[in-house]
């Protein structure tokens, strides 16, 4: 394996997971994904080390590292920090240059991002500070039904009806859900209602920034097939299929940006 300075890494430390992507010669070479702990420096390093191990590399083999996500502020291993909004834009553009709109649903926030043909952000909106419409919200709901988070989408898709969910506050939605169960509503129909309620809230975010095809769905919640379907219905769009784990898009974008920075700073010539 030639260590010639052509390795670039992106590390995305989110509230629920830390992710890393290593690029070699412009291609995805290795990835890492671990649950986030209390210490964001440690979480980022764990994700990076996982990717390094699978690639047979050491940290010093990397030419440039970009940190992103909420943990970007404490990433001493990174050469630069860039926001996840810019990184998701670059990551989606790297995979699909025709993408113009991104829905990013992570553990603690949700973002609507519009980008141009170069993957530069044109406009964006984020949910307010409450947990409605985020991975944390779905995690709470999975807890109410005592099911695995990963199974939530499939259960929602098996629904025969949609039970409307009026609460968007996580705490109120939890009590509303318990009331609906007590009323005899089927869990899959309630879960379907929850997914549609979140999707409608996301549609509100897009009323601020607009939608243009192609549409990409990134972040941990993008793995939820029920959420994808509900968003497609609410926004009246078809979401493009990602080739890699959608949870890695932020880290991928960070790695792409690391490559660009490196070139700009004269550390690497293509």
């Amino acid at each position, binding site marked *: 394996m030639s260590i010639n300075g052509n390795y670039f890494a992106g590390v995305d430390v989110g509230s629920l997971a830390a992710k890393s992507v290593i690029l070699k010669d412009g291609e995805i070479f290795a990835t890492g994904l671990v649950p986030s702990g209390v210490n964001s420096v440690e979480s980022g390093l764990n994700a990076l080390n996982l990717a390094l191990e699978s690639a047979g590399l050491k940290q010093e083999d990397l030419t440039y590292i970009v940190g992103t996500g909420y943990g970007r502020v404490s990433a001493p291993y990174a050469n630069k920090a860039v926001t996840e909004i810019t990184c998701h834009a670059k990551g989606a553009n790297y995979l699909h240059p025709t993408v113009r709109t991104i829905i990013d649903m992570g553990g603690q926030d949700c973002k609507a991002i519009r980008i141009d043909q170069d993957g530069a952000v*044109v406009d964006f909106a984020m949910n307010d500070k409450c947990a409605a419409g985020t991975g944390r919200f779905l995690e709470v709901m999975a807890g109410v039904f005592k099911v695995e988070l990963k199974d939530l989408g499939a259960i929602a898709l098996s629904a025969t009806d949609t039970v409307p969910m009026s609460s968007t506050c996580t705490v109120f939605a939890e009590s509303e859900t318990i009331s609906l169960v007590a009323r005899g509503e089927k869990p899959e129909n309630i879960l379907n209602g929850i997914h549609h309620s979140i999707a409608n809230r996301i549609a509100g975010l897009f009323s601020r920034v607009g939608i243009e095809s192609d549409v990409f769905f990134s972040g941990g919640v993008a793995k939820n097939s029920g959420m994808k379907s509900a968003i497609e219905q609410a926004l009246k769009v078809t979401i493009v299929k990602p080739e890699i784990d959608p949870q890695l898009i932020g880290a991928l974008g960070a790695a792409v940006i690391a490559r660009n920075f490196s070139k700009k700073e004269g550390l690497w010539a293509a």
Partner: protein
Amino acid sequence: MSVKTLDVIRKRLEERPDELRRARENGLKVVGWVGYNVPEEIIHALGFIPVRIAIGGDDRLVEIGARYASSKTCVFIREIVGAFAENQDPYIQQTDILAFDATCLQNYRAAEVIEYFFKKDVVVLAVPRNFHLDEAKEYFAHEANEFTRLLEERAGAPLDSARLAESVALYNDIRKTLKSIYTFQASKDNVISWEEVYDLIQAGDLLDKREYLSLLTQTLDELKERQHHPVIASDDGDCRIFLSGSLIPRGDRKLIGIIRSVGGRIVGDDLWSGILPHLDLDIKEISPAGVALGYLNRTPHAALPYLDLESDRRLKKLQERLSEFKAQGVIYHTLRYCDPFTFKAKETKNVLAKSGIPLLEIHTEYAGSDYEAMKTRVEAFVEMIKIKSEIAEEQGVLVDA
């Protein structure tokens, strides 16, 4: 960036509460005012000491205020009410009379709550909703006379025309000097920052007006000595941000600090706690009605309804200022339950988008819990503008080549 007169002003602000206390012991009265259309010259000409009550950034006071005002009242007003409830603010402690205007109805509500719960002597100036109509101007002139009469009763003497003329001249000089200083902060190789000028403007809410004018003049002289010809240019490599929306009073520096920390440079504002109230005030007649109409004819406050976007003076003023200060993006600050500005965020964004100016709305309150989320938004906005500038620069290079 160290302007020596600013240190003098900071020192004078520390001494000011004690100075007010001594002035009151000598028989002078302090009028604390809150609002956008309060004609301060009238208060000054009647021999009162005017002090603007505008504080923010303290979530604890907001909670206290919510015990008296509705929790759906904007956080600024709740904090003001909370500060009156607690009575620890050195300026609130020194007020004898309060003057509120009803430009924003929440302001009016605060006057009622403060009068009812804290037994303060409150005078309210009514403000017409349809400010642009002739009938509204007639109504406001009448209300300004009534406002003056109520203050005259408290002053124990009628308003003297000559003293009003002196006050108007003094305030005009203050406004003129502030505008000159403001240009320096936005210039290339600036020696004074927008943040410093913003603090300087707010110092004028509290200091003695004659001394304030003298300190402003010294500041301007110092600036002219250090920077002969301030040039406002967009190619200085900065991410030039214009701040708009709900007021940012003294004590609230959360958003301003975030913008600076992520590499943004504020180059202008149209906040009613900033330069805006000092712009375009043309007093044509020395009388209470003349002064009040000068106030009403300025750029209108967002709380006054106006639905025709094409002729909206507020939006027109914003566009003029963006062009003058060569701003690359607008951060539109809205406070929780500050409906006038929050409701106008979308239309303002749409209007500016037509001229290629991006707008980021930051909706916040005085709690610190949204700090990181705010920082991410502002940082991404700054990144967006910087990337846009880099692309434009690269394309410019290609075109030039």
